[in-house]
């Protein structure tokens, strides 16, 4: 495929934005004093920053690139189903408030699992969370490299390495403060880009023309009884819910937001996020009307932009996707580093480590995660993108263990351990037997049944005070 922008232009954009993120990250993190500052931004993030970071992290490259992909694969329900991802944010709003109340001094989602359910469930959870984080990190790095290569001709290793190195560097310099601060700017860049692309798409093909062309060339995309799309609807909702409920990306923010902020921030971010996938995704429905050639579904968004806006559109997509990738990569790097530092290094290897030692370890672990991600991205394994979809069944199986664990005293450790394993296995079976659009749904369903039955038959009597024990 012929590149849409020159390599020189791509290098200038990469250089300029990389410099911006690094300088801004350093500026924000220059007053970090202790581990609390570095890992949790001092636990006093305000409402505006909190809302922006929740929204930017959820507007990932998945939204900017996969929303058009889902619209092209699943049609109208693809866009709507993707916007159901906001439900995860909305439901996490009351959970964030509860988490902050029950565990005001905790660090990670792993802390909750360990204190609430004990070692076995905690370690199963760490396995699921670690696999998901690694799959997401690698898929982000690979997506960045592939997109930069497709748009500019800049080789995959250079594009991928640049984006990873930049994110590691500014996360290292500024910790969570840098991540949240850059997220604010990245949110505006992403939203402006999506609105502009939607506007220019409509100037090239009206809704009537798009409708007519879809009916002629891809009629199922308009069919409200499109079977695979109907199956996809709740699968995507539960996948998103599983991602948010279990991932330390969202828990670390619940700990970092100031008192009383978490509920409002997640609720506002969820409401503001609802139209984003629809705005980002509907451009794919213009493809038949504009006769745009699509080699792969994940290139739908960038190719529409490049075709209707020429070089300017390609540059815009380049900046938007670079920002979206960075906003997710940095959050995931910081949150995974926190999880590894606290749950593996501190709790498994160095229980007596001082805060200063942990602060230093967190930095080294961020670099280490960056290197592991880079090596895996370098292998350019095509199947790693599929691993992220596969992880849908795993993360969805944590929905009920976490939600019930936060609100019910009767939920027990053995029940949730079996629920996570059986839910994951059932989801994986469904992935291969039926399709990727049923994996999370099946995993969540099986896990929910086991949590319900085990809590009813063998109720525990958990004391909430124990969640505050070692923090």
């Amino acid at each position: 495929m012929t590149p849409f922008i020159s390599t020189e232009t791509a290098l200038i954009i990469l250089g300029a934005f990389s410099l911006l993120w690094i300088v801004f990250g350093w500026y924000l993190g220059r007053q970090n004093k202790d581990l609390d500052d570095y890992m949790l931004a001092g636990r006093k993030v305000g409402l505006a920053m909190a809302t922006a970071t929740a929204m930017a992290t959820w507007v990932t490259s998945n939204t900017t690139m996969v929303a058009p992909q889902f619209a092209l694969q699943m049609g109208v329900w693809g866009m709507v189903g993707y916007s159901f991802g906001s439900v995860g944010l909305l439901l996490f709003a009351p959970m964030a408030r509860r988490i902050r109340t029950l565990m005001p001094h905790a660090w990670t989602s792993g802390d909750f699992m360990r204190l609430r359910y004990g070692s076995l469930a905690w370690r199963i959870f760490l396995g699921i969370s670690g696999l998901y984080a690694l799959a997401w990190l690698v898929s982000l790095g690979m997506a960045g490299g592939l997109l930069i290569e497709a748009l500019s001709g800049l080789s995959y290793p250079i594009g991928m390495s640049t984006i990873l190195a930049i994110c590691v560097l500014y996360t290292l310099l500024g910790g969570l403060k840098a991540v949240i601060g850059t997220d604010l700017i990245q949110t505006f860049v992403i939203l402006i880009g999506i609105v502009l692309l939607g506007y220019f798409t409509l100037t090239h093909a009206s809704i009537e023309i798009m409708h007519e062309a879809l009916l002629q060339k891809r009629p199922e995309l308009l069919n409200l009884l499109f079977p695979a799309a109907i199956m996809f609807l709740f699968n995507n909702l539960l996948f998103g819910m599983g991602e948010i409920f279990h991932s330390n990306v969202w828990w670390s923010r619940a700990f970092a937001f100031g008192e009383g902020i978490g509920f409002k921030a997640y609720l506002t971010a969820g409401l503001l996020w609802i139209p984003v996938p629809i705005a980002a995704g509907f451009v794919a429905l213009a493809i038949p009307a504009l006769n745009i050639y699509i080699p792969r579904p994940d290139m739908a968004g960038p190719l529409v932009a490049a075709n209707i806006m020429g070089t300017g559109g390609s540059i815009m997509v380049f900046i938007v996707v670079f920002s979206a990738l960075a906003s997710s990569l940095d959050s995931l790097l910081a949150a995974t580093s926190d999880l590894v530092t606290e749950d593996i290094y501190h709790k498994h290897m160095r229980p007596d480590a001082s805060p200063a030692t942990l602060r230093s370890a967190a930095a080294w672990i961020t670099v280490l995660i960056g290197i592991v991600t880079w090596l895996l991205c370098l292998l350019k394994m095509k199947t790693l993108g599929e691993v992220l979809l596969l992880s849908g069944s795993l993360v969805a199986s944590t929905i009920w263990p976490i939600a019930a664990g936060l609100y019910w005293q009767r939920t027990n450790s053995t029940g949730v351990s079996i629920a996570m394993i059986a839910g994951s296995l059932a989801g994986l079976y469904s992935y291969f037997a039926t399709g990727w659009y049923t994996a999370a749904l099946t995993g969540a369903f099986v896990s929910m049944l086991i949590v319900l039955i085990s809590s009813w038959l063998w109720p525990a009597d958990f004391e909430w005070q124990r969640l505050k024990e070692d923090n």
Partner: protein
Amino acid sequence: MPLALGAQTEMEGAACQWMLESDTIESRNGYFQLQWQANTAECEGQTLALYQLQPGPQRLIYKGSNTTLFISGQPAGQYVYQLYSEPGTAKQAVGQQLTVQVEHYPLWTAFSYFGIGLFVFIGTLLLIGRGDRTA
């Protein structure tokens, strides 16, 4: 897996053999990817045309030098595709035909998954809503 050897086209003296990467595809969701490839790197960049022969009248789907095409939104049915090289005004078939069988999931299957999803969603909503109120 390449199954069919293609017909030859001339490209700067080299004999190009083009082949579709499969001769049959089954799709349960109305989308699929078509891929074709040449036997040597020298043939890459050659312009080919992909036609849909069935159903309905023959129509041009793609013309150019790329070797991958993504198609979606197709109703149930049998679709037949054929690659052509177009030296001058003549149209010459390249390789053998590709048949795609689109058969969507039954609606009862789709709504069963929909119902399970709705059940899990409402259950989670109740758990969090009631839990938040009593907490």
